[in-house]
């Protein structure tokens, strides 16, 4: 018995300890690391018990509220990394601390991409008197291909390479399409960081490169803005998926010189493009405009006589400041939430810009709203 007890006891201590520990610790409502709400204690009802939802909820609840949750998850990723695994939780662990959202040719939604492009083309064709442009920001792996893990490359079919997508874009929309991948590559291949290492967005420097391409192609003056770092403790969405303790910290910069008169974000009026309080939270990218809204109207105070309708995803949030000197008002629309008639919004503007990240554009199911006639 003396020899039998220690293993049994060790196991009991771990299981009962974890069990009691998880029960005693107060439940957390939100996991900032994973950027999602955690399951709360389910209520026992007869119906929920009989249809199996109660027990399913208890399963999720115990898994979500287990003691040391982040430690377990980080330990798992670390072990996988130590054993040579180069993709963990749908994230490629690249060189120099760069993480990439896993993206293969099979992952790219080509039919929807072409459908969405057609929707944009139809919208542009319906506004022939306006300066309409589309800018699809390249996916990080397309630009920072030299940072991909060993064995992955744009040339051997293992990674989505975007060539065909940009060809389709140029075929369909010709001069209205602004392609920034080569310029981003040129700058990003050097010492400048054009994408965050632990987040899926481009950096402000990356957005600035794209801005320069945009300004040159649309005939605007290319202005130079100084970028000021506001935090160097940013760990973004890709970090959340792997939770590796050794992950890099990114620096977030903003163009402080850009002033606006006011900004109406779904009825909430602000006087700066930046919400510095968001630097205190985990997702520091929200410093740009404070996050995503259905519709934002920016009164820039510039006197140019021009106005812009910007249809966009979150990549535009850090890009927007660079446009403020070229337009009096900018109407920023997120098609996921906006229920207004796009034709009417465009009617009030001189220019239209569609700005998405390429793979996000290809998976977005809301572009059809461009053609809706909402009364």
């Amino acid at each position: 018995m003396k020899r039998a007890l220690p293993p049994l006891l060790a196991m009991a201590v771990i299981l009962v300890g974890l069990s009691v520990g998880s029960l005693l610790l107060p439940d957390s409502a939100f996991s900032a690391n994973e950027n999602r709400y955690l399951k709360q204690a389910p209520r026992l009802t007869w119906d929920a018990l009989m249809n199996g939802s109660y027990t399913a909820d208890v399963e999720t609840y115990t898994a979500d509220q287990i003691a040391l949750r982040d430690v377990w998850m980080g330990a798992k990723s670390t072990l996988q990394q130590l054993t040579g695994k180069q993709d963990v939780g749908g994230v490629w662990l690249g060189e120099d601390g760069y993480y990439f959202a896993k993206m293969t040719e099979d992952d790219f939604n080509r039919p929807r991409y072409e459908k969405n492009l057609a929707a944009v083309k139809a919208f542009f064709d319906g506004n022939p008197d306006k300066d309409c442009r589309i800018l699809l920001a390249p996916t990080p792996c397309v630009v920072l291909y030299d940072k991909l893990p060993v064995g992955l490359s744009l040339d051997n079919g293992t990674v989505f390479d975007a060539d065909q997508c940009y060809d389709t874009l140029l075929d369909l929309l010709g001069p209205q399409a602004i392609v920034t991948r080569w310029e981003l590559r040129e700058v990003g291949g050097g010492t400048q960081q054009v994408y965050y290492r632990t987040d899926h967005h481009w950096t402000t420097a990356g957005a600035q490169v794209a801005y320069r391409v945009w300004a040159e192609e649309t005939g605007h003056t290319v202005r130079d803005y100084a970028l000021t770092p506001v935090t160097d403790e940013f760990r973004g969405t890709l970090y959340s998926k792997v939770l590796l303790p050794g992950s890099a910290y990114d620096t977030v910069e903003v163009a402080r010189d850009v002033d606006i008169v006011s900004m109406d974000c779904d009825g909430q009026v602000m006087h700066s493009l930046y919400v510095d309080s968001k630097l205190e939270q985990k997702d520091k990218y929200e410093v740009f405009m404070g996050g995503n809204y259905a519709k934002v109207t920016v009164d820039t105070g510039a006197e140019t006589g021009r106005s812009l309708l910007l249809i966009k995803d979150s990549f535009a949030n850090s890009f927007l400041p660079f446009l403020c000197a070229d337009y009096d008002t900018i109407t920023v629309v997120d098609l996921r939430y906006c229920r207004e008639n796009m034709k009417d919004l465009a009617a009030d503007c001189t220019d239209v810009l569609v700005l998405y990240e390429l793979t996000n554009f290809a998976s977005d199911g809301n572009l059809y709203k461009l053609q809706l006639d909402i009364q």
Partner: protein
Amino acid sequence: MVFSSTVFLLLFLPLVALVYFICPRRWRNGVLLAFSLLFYGWGEPKYILIMLFSTVFDYCNGLAIGRFREKGKEAGAKAILILSCVGNLGILGFFKYTDFAIDNINGLLHAGIPALGLALPIGISFYTFQTMSYTIDVYRGLVAPQRNIVNFGAYVTLFPQLIAGPIVQYKTVERELNSRAETWQEASAGMQRFCVGLAKKVLIANQVGALWEEISAMADPSAATAWLGAIAFTFQIYFDFSGYSDMAIGLGHLFGFTFLENFDHPYESASVTEFWRRWHISLGTWFREYVYIPLGGNRHGKARQILNLAIVWFLTGLWHGASWNFVLWGVYYAVLLILEKTVLLKWLRRLPAWVGHVYTVFAFVMGWVLFAITDFAALGRYVAAMFTAPLWDGMAGYLLLSNAFLLLLATVGCTTLPLRLWQRWQKRLSPAADTAVRTVWVVAMLLLSFSFLVGDSYNPFLYFRF
């Protein structure tokens, strides 16, 4: 409920162990019965009723057969036996095969009969076979009818093996069911076995399973990638299923039960015949004892033996799932086994041993491909990729590199090598060192498994579908 979940490990297991060992011996089967019903009803409460019906039905059948026997009424005993078999197979057939039959009738006759859309009660394929083994063995006089319904209920519902086997025949546990002595030694050994099973499931099966999922979803994999996928599934199903059996056998020991082994390193076999003696042993034994031998086995000449093998393997395939690919898989093994019985084994004996191993590995990897892909068109595409797609591409290289350690671990893990190394090492250890190593091992396996369990969303048990 599954073993590899936080609910089981942190709530259910500590609670059932605590209550079980606090209670006096005579209540313990009752404790097991109550907790087993909770375990079973966790996902699908309403199917507890089927389980209770099955229990009461065969409890009564067993008693009735016993009573007819006592009075010397053979015909009555036989009638009850037939009733029991029809009842059990009827339940299994109704829940598992009705929609499959409707689907095929519709396909043939364009009848347009609506499917019932019944959810398959978990573990029904396992527990109907177990209760049938009871009534058949009572009829054969191998075991006495169980008079205590709690004891019988505990046998039918016993949660360690309820959901995915091993298929424990009543005669294996008859004595332990009526009186058993739990010991610390046995409990400790059982829990060590449980941790190994958990690690096999969580650290290996789930990980190679994710690799298989990734590859099987690819539009056009190269031949190397497709083979890698097939090998990944081969590893997944072994570590998943044998890991589950380890956990079941280990939990059995905790409560003083000894279940028979279900796996004996099957991937080391040198022929398909040997493979099936070492893979899912409890199912093979069941079919041999209750189908093959009653059909006459090999006692009525070669032709009859071949027919019997064909019947057994058609049924084995169908038992795994109501889908034609499982039937095809059964027929595939029937053909291989019949070939081996007639000529192949003789040839293999004359050749060097490695030929047999290469042939067997090829045979079961192909078998698992048939097994894994239920849709015939997709199956055709996948097999075509394995043999006719371009040999190599960057993806194959990347996946091989990224998963090299995992694949090496799985390869070594399904041989007897780790066990042999441990036994050699153990001989040189003092008793105290042996205990220390075991403790560290249990803690390591448990903590590693836990981190993967919490960190991973991919956690299915393959044999749940059956």
